[in-house]
């Protein structure tokens, strides 16, 4: 299923160079380089505290890096504001779902279209033809997205009322409504049961096939990582310790050491079987 060399046919979507982020005396990310190519699902894994989320936050503009640069589609986006980065085409979801709880599911998705529309104060008050056309377009996009995630029947329900798994999908749909070229998912399977996780994996694969999309994942569930990734990057202690196709990473002694410590005798039979079952 996976090849040993990276499929580099697609052009580079995201690239970092010497990315370094320091919190006080702690270097959370140190000289981190990576590349993501168009059409890939790339996973970023590593033990807790490895700096994965920090990398996400630097890429999405929540933190500014001390050193290094981030390039998106060849454009330097280092230090740009989060909402600007979204408008360039990077959308994200959060580890602990962050929806707009009292707004309806449809309104949640419409929020994603904000950066793709332009009606100002006067246009909105006086309902100019341009504004009305734009609203219709937003409505159409939101409706097609909500159908895509099978929540059409809940479109007018406040987002806080729907099931947890549905909330995850809604958050992804909101991110997709920003029309991104790169979708960044922070632990999309956390809190989902195995069946929902399977559905999520299928959903992600469909996304890559249907939309012109690239996905970057942070994930703890090795099942998901091994199941959907084209490329895996392993972080430990703020540095990249390995990268490669999933199977190669799975057998990399350095990775095993990072996760389980130096003593090779410790094994996790559970995980072993799961991966074999999938691969």
């Amino acid at each position, binding site marked *: 299923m996976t090849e040993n060399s990276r499929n580099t046919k697609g052009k580079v979507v995201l690239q970092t160079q010497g990315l370094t982020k320091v919190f006080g005396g702690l270097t959370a990310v140190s000289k981190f380089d990576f590349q993501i190519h168009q059409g890939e699902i790339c996973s970023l894994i590593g033990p807790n505290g490895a700096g994965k989320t920090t990398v996400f936050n630097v890429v*999405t503009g929540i933190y500014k890096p001390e050193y290094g640069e981030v390039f998106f589609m060849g454009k330097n986006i280092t230090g740009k*504001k*989060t*909402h600007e980065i*979204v*408008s360039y085409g990077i*959308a*994200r979801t*959060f580890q602990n779902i*962050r*929806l*707009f*709880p*009292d*707004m*309806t599911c*449809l*309104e949640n998705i*419409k*929020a*994603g*279209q*904000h*950066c*793709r*529309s332009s*009606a*100002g*104060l006067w246009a*909105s*008050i*006086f*309902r100019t033809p341009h*504004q009305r056309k*734009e*609203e219709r377009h*937003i409505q159409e996009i939101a409706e097609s997205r909500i159908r895509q995630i099978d929540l059409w*029947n*809940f*479109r*007018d*329900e*406040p987002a806080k009322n729907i099931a947890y798994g549905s909330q995850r999908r809604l958050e992804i749909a*909101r*991110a997709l409504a*920003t029309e991104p070229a790169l979708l960044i998912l922070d632990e999309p399977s956390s809190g989902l049961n195995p069946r929902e996780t399977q559905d999520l994996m299928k959903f992600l694969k469909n996304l890559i096939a249907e939309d012109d999309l690239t996905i970057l994942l942070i994930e703890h569930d090795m099942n998901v990582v091994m199941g959907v990734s084209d490329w895996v990057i392993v972080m430990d202690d703020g540095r990249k310790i390995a990268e490669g196709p999933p199977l190669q990473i799975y057998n990399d002694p350095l990775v095993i050491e990072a996760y389980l410590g130096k003593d090779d005798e410790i094994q996790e039979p559970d995980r072993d079987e799961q991966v074999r079952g999938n691969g």
Partner: protein
Amino acid sequence: MKHNAFLRIKEFFTSRPKTAFAAVAVFIVYPFLVSDYYIDVTFYFGIYALLGLSLNIVLGEVGLFDLGHACFYAIGAYTTAILNTRFGIPVLALLPVSAVAAALFAYIVCSPIIHLRGDYLCIVTIGMGEIVRLALINNPFNLTGGPNGVFGIDFPSLGGAIVIDSSIEYYFLIWIVVVLSILGLGKLQDSRIGRAWNCIREDQTAAEASGIDVRFYKLLAFMLGAALAGVGGNIYASKLMCVSPESFTFWESCLMFCIVLIGGMGSIPGVLIGAAFISLFPEIFRPFAMYRMLVFGAVMILMMMFRPGGFWPRKRGAVSFDPLLEVRGRDD
């Protein structure tokens, strides 16, 4: 029985054309049927409705705790008072000027504090309100007349063409402004700007990550809220014919806050209910003036216990139960 009646009233008000027609008819006929006293009471109801609407943008739509909103009201009133008494510019012509002055003031003062969240912003806005009031008392550049304020403001007029000098005319002036504001704000609620405001209220970080320029939309809300309060200040100043710092105390900001909370955050009908309560309540309870605040406090406490979302919270979406039934019906 009582609940039934409540539902029927609600049903009536949610069928739009009937409501609009009934409301317009009542408001046009009403001032010709009652004495000047009641017209004035309704005028102040209108002023508070306008102030409530203006704070509702900041507090209700965006969720920014602004306890100094009276300062924008003051800026509007003093702009009108000073420009009218010094330069004789007609009051109605100063209406947009007051709005712009208040909005500009909001932009300058709020720019550096806009990133503050929750209670921190609340405390800074209290300070903002107090600083403006104290500055007015201290009579900067001999402009504000110190504690006595500014006297001799004209009737609202537009260079002799339109002159507003009776209670009925003031009544129509304020309510036309209120109705126009309601129409405009209603349109805004149902647009990308209204949605962006609500997103910020619900979750600021998620809003930013969904591509909404949080800082810009917060400032926009403050400026628009200030502009409306400035318009309120203009009409208030010409009605009273004088302005003094006493009219713009912290208590006034609190009243505006109560209007929004009583009615329901982000709800335009709610603001009207809140404003009616705040302005009519003291009149009704005039004979028991001593116990007024006691009853007022008790009502607030009871409301927080039994209707924490306000008397008329904003309804979202079209239907809430049908979709669930639909799912069950389809059985998938």
